[in-house]
């Protein structure tokens, strides 16, 4: 069953602006992962943040995790048209070799 809820469900921004997507989950986790999906294709892994971490960066991506609020956010800075995609958070309640539980996703449109 789906555990995560992303908001907003859809986001439209101008190129160069920052995009922030939020994810909430219900149960305790070992880690939380963010994925990108372009046009109904496969998922590309973006970043993993463990339950004992609060913030993580990768290029233009910044992820935060607040386990007390059971929430995470993904910030994409200086967005580009190529960032247009659906973004999903997924939680892992254990430590590997277990299936992920996905949120509903945010559809991001970056307008050039």
């Amino acid at each position, binding site marked *: 069953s*789906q555990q995560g809820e992303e908001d907003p469900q859809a986001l439209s921004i101008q190129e160069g602006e920052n995009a922030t997507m939020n994810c909430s989950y219900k149960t305790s986790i070992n880690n939380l*992962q963010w994925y990108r999906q372009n046009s*109904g*294709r496969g*998922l590309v892994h973006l970043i993993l943040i463990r339950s004992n971490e609060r913030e993580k960066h990768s290029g233009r991506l910044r992820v935060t995790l607040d386990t007390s609020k059971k929430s995470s956010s993904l910030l994409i800075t200086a967005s580009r048209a190529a960032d247009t995609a659906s973004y999903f958070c*997924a939680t*892992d309640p254990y430590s*590997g070799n277990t299936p992920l539980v996905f949120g509903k*996703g945010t559809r991001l449109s970056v307008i050039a």
Partner: protein
Amino acid sequence: SAVISQKPSRDICQRGTSLTIQCQVDSQVTMMFWYRQQPGQSLTLIATANQGSEATYESGFVIDKFPISRPNLTFSTLTVSNMSPEDSSIYLCSVDRGGETQYFGPGTRLLVL
């Protein structure tokens, strides 16, 4: 990372027929997972495939409808049986190479008429 391929990449099928989707990984993995993504929706786990044992299915998914094979540590198949238009979805396999990150195949886009 892991290199995962799926065949076919897409297919259009008639209702009542069956389609077998293949998932090939470039290295040995213990667990493989099959997910379904219905149009405009998120991913839902169908089953976990462990080599050498029966697949474990999630609530709402049964072996008769979605039989899975896992003959070795680099390969798995998912069959969608007796298809109906409601089975139109993207089917994705994923693997966990013993770490925490899961890697996904490119997906199989299925349309049932």
